[in-house]
């Protein structure tokens, strides 16, 4: 009897559970249905536009439509529209539609990404937010990745710079519409559900918000220190005025993105916000609280489920050259390295990046047979496998910094000796498995500003010994350690290098370096610190030697890192105490120079001086491994939306890897 009762109870419990699960899935199903209906409606509404675009002939290169991989030769640019800034005439490169082929359009691209912390265009600063706006939004002018000095048309059809780089006048493209946000579908926000044209007023609003002291974007405002005023001349003409002629005004003006006044200038019920409190409300705007993103770009943010995924849908009304994908999905759910790699191998994402350790196990040791094994004769052998892999250059570099304010590193010869004793290439080969390029300065190796004439500090212990002897270091008391008389006392050459904890690469690097220094008679102690502690160490300049890294940028500015005025400033980036009058002069001059050959000359001279002084022993710029779903096994058909074509074309046409490489990607049919 008992057993029967228990069985009945169990059955009832199971039925209850099934009912609860059923009920709980209903709202989610309703939501999905509604979204697909909206999507269908949107497609139908814009169908005439899509068909028209398909009927347009493909402009430009005259290459065969089914050519997936031949790299694209750089377009020939004719003056004056060659992208180089000039006074008094429009120099923007015209829009190039030759990369887009309607036949390749379609499919959903899946990649991994991290959750953005916030999506406000000004007050949130994460890299992910930048990627979201790169997909969904545009700026006045665009830059070619291979030639960052060359600006091309984007939202601005023309720009005239006048008054010796103090005034920028833009003529905007007409008929560009703001996207309708997903929120507009909710009845409470029905007032958002209309088409609004982009006008000069939106750019003025962006500048007003950036300069408003109540808006929480102090670091962005630094770039507009010399900004004077923004003016709406008429509906599609916008003018920016600067107080001083300074080079940063070029990228700050041409790279400006508009902010929709019809959304950020209003309350949630549609009423306008009084001018005085615009900035205050902007900080905590209801649109950001609903995770809204609206732009004028190629994709619309269609779905954002926190920690699950972000989905971008192609904007059929886009004015410019779209990517070939219909949808782009970011998987936010899988966060760890191992599960991500497994998901990539299972075909759940189309491209990924490998850390050096995974590169070693998967490719060097060939654990994954679908990668082509490494071939010393052919650097690009990885392109032929079912899973393609290739080395891609990154935009950051690492270094060991020496505190130039006190002994032993106040003497240039000692610093140069340290660089001679640093086995750079061996470290790159052994610790990072060859993933890394040795750098001699803080400028991107592919940039025209990079001084390639600098003579590297070769790994030469004899030379290092000679330099140290010149600087007065010798083994006076015969204990195997170098020493010197400092302030009347015999001090041994021993110092601490402070570095990032939780980094096995730095552990190994410093261990190898330590061994080399021991041969010279120098005792180096590597001491790991947590990130926060290390930031405090930078601030207090409380180190003899410290490890660090910087992001390299397209724009060169030597002020922050190397200007002597920053040496004693609290919280400055010049923590090594580098102060050189000539570099100060040149850095100030660089800020005011606009012609590229002159800029290059100045930058190269600065790099030469820094190279001579060695405040940092520059280490490596990082190189990552990019992997992607390349092609099916020989003889197998390609399932839909599984394998990417055009990846190699992108890698050959643009480097380092930036969003522009995706211009050629499409699914193999």
């Amino acid at each position, binding site marked *: 009897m008992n057993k029967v009762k228990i069985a009945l109870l169990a059955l009832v419990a199971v039925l209850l559970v*099934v009912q609860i*699960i*059923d009920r709980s*899935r209903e709202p*989610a199903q309703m939501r999905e249905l509604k979204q697909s209906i909206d999507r269908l409606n949107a497609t139908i509404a814009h169908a005439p536009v899509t068909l028209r675009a398909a009927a347009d002939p493909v402009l430009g290169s005259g290459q065969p439509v089914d050519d997936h991989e031949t790299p694209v030769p750089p377009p020939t640019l004719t003056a004056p529209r060659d992208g180089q800034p000039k006074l008094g005439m429009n120099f923007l490169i015209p829009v190039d539609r030759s990369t887009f082929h309607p036949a390749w359009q379609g499919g959903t691209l899946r990649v991994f990404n991290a959750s953005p*912390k916030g999506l406000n265009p000004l007050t*949130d*600063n994460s890299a992910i937010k930048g990627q979201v706006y790169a997909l969904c939004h545009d700026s006045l002018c665009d830059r070619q990745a291979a030639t960052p000095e060359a600006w091309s048309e984007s939202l601005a059809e023309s720009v005239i710079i006048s008054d010796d780089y103090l005034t920028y006048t833009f003529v905007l493209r007409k008929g560009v519409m703001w996207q309708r946000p997903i929120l507009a579908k909710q009845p409470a926000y029905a007032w958002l559900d209309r088409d609004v044209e982009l006008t000069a007023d939106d750019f003025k609003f962006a500048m007003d918000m950036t300069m408003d*002291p*109540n*808006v*929480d*974007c*102090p*670091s962005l*405002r*630094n770039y507009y220190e010399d900004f004077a005023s923004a003016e709406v001349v008429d509906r599609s003409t916008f003018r920016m005025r600067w107080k001083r002629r300074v080079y940063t005004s070029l990228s700050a003006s041409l790279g400006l993105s508009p902010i929709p006044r019809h959304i950020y200038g209003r309350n949630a019920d549609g009423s306008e*916000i*009084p001018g*005085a*409190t615009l900035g*205050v409300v902007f900080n*905590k705007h209801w649109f*950001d609280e*609903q*995770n809204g993103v609206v732009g004028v770009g190629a994709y619309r943010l269609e779905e954002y489920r926190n*920690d699950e995924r972000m989905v971008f849908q192609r904007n059929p009304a886009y004015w410019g050259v779209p990517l070939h994908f219909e949808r782009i999905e970011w998987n936010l*759910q899988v*966060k760890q390295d191992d*599960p991500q790699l*497994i998901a990539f191998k*299972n*075909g*759940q994402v189309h491209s990924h990046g490998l850390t050096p350790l995974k590169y070693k196990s998967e490719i060097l040791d060939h654990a994954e047979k*679908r990668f082509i094994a490494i071939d010393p004769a052919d650097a690009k052998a990885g392109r032929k496998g079912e899973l393609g892999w290739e080395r891609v250059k990154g935009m*950051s570099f*690492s270094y060991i910094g020496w505190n130039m304010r006190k002994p032993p590193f106040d003497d240039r010869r000692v610093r140069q000796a340290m660089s001679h004793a640093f086995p750079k290439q061996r470290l790159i080969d052994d610790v990072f498995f060859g993933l890394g390029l040795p750098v001699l300065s803080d400028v991107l190796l592919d940039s025209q500003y990079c001084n390639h004439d600098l003579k590297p500090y070769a790994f030469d212990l004899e030379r290092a010994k000679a330099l140290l002897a010149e600087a007065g270091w010798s083994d006076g008391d015969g204990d195997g350690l170098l020493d010197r008389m400092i302030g009347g006392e015999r001090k041994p050459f021993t110092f601490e290098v402070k570095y*990032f904890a939780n*980094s096995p690469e*730095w552990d190994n690097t410093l261990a190898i370096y330590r061994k080399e220094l021991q041969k010279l008679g120098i005792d180096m102690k590597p001491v790991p610190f947590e*990130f*926060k502690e290390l*930031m*405090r160490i930078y*601030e*207090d*300049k409380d180190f003899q030697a410290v*490890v*660090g*890294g*910087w*992001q390299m940028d397209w724009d060169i500015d030597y*002020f*922050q890192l190397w200007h002597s005025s920053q040496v004693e400033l*609290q*919280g*400055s*980036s010049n923590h090594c105490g580098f102060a050189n009058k000539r570099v100060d002069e040149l850095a100030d001059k660089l800020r005011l120079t606009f012609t590229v050959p002159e800029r290059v000359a100045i930058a190269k001279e600065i790099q030469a001086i820094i190279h001579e002084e060695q405040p940092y022993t520059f280490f490596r710029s990082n190189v990552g491994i990019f992997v992607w779903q390349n092609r099916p*096994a*020989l003889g197998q058909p390609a399932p839909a939306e599984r394998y990417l074509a055009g990846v190699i074309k992108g890698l050959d046409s643009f480097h380092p890897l930036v969003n522009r490489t995706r211009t050629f990607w499409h699914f193999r049919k």
Partner: protein
Amino acid sequence: MFAYIVRRLLLMIPTMLGILIINFLVLRMQSPSLVEQAQAGGSGKGGEGVSSERKAGGASKQYANHIDRFRRLGNDLPAVVNLRGFLDKDDVVAWLRRTSPAAGRTDSQRSTAEQDLWLAGHYAVGPLSDVLADPALADLYGPASQAFALCAHTSLVPADQRDPIRVNVVRTRNQVLAQNVIGYRSDRLQGFVTDDSRAEAKRQALLAVYADPANRVDYAASGGQRWRSILFETGFSTFLTRLFTGTLVSESRPNQYVFSIIADHWKLTFCLNILSIALAWGFSIPLGIRSARRLNTLEDRATTNLLFLLWSLPSFFIGTVLLHHFCTDSVKDGVLQPAWFPNAGLSSAGSLWYSTPRYLLDLAWHGALPLLVLSYASFTSLSRYMRGNLLDQFEADYVRTARAKGASEDGIVYRHALRNSLLTMITLGAGLLAELFSGVLIVELIFSIPGLGWLLLDAAKQQDAPLLMGSTVISVGLLLIGILVADILYAVVDPRLRSRYA
């Protein structure tokens, strides 16, 4: 009994408060300072991951924005006790001198002192204006004016847009304050050196702001307000107020309430936890009973050894091994071998449209491996506890009596011995309620399940104090309730203890 329960419930309140205060203090010590935020070059907290690369952005001199942010989050107030209402001129002078460069004082100590002064708010405005009015303290005019401008800076909130007159007044006043900060340099030998040709005019302008009776409303405080501020204008009291009015907002996800974030992530964790508890207890208790009944047989010894072997295998290792072997597609002789189990999450992509039985099967398929990894470690401990308890009971005299009476072995075990060994199991079960709430980080990371463990780890990394405090409140509350329930159950189960509670 009732009095006992009431007494226990009342005792929970100070326990809870004590735990929360300690947690709050520890979190406060971790949160980034004003200057750190200004250097981080943005409103993002901490760094992006553990990358060693930092964007070369200059240190921001625009502290007013950062102070606004601190005030919005309630981080400008001291943690537990607020004595700012009793600041006077001498305190402020001593404080200013602490921010000057001197031998033995590091830059970070100076900036911490500076930051604390700037966040002191309207209580410090009066004493600072006294400093500015005192000709004997002319060397301190520079830092005092900077502190005055920032303490007197009034932060606006979106709700203020309803009162446009006040907004204009405040904006003008803030602008006047920002424009009249006297420029100065800190020199290691000379201390503060004023570096400004318009210093006198600026000083008068700042004093005029304070002298204006219309502004006094914002800056002066009555005696009663000062006394109340000691305990009621603190970070902890702000936190408690927001907790009880349900307006506790997370710092890393500023558009969501803490409890709704936790609720979203808790559902998955709850399912996993309850199933793993059911599995662990459902498997271990019978196993323990069986082992006790067949003491020292081959089966018992083999089971013990096997369980200890399982126990010694760490769960992250087992999880990763299972993930690699059973969840990865592999290629053998050019043919793709699909994996046996899925590699992420608890549901498939199209699972929303499956029929409910298929959805449940899909859930079981996804959840099998995570569940296994979660529960296998508890098999050993629970079954050994059960076995040990039963063995103790078998030594007791009532069991001997029952055997002598001729009761069946089954009856002895299930009707007599088991009930007496419940006491220990109830003790173990006290933590169950709290365990339901805790996220299991390892399984969630390996199998990519967006549950509570990952949420709390992320909150800890981003120093999101409200989220961590909110989850502490819930887990501590559940733990205390669990302990109380366990104590009540003791009384229910064991008549000997009932009299103790009366």
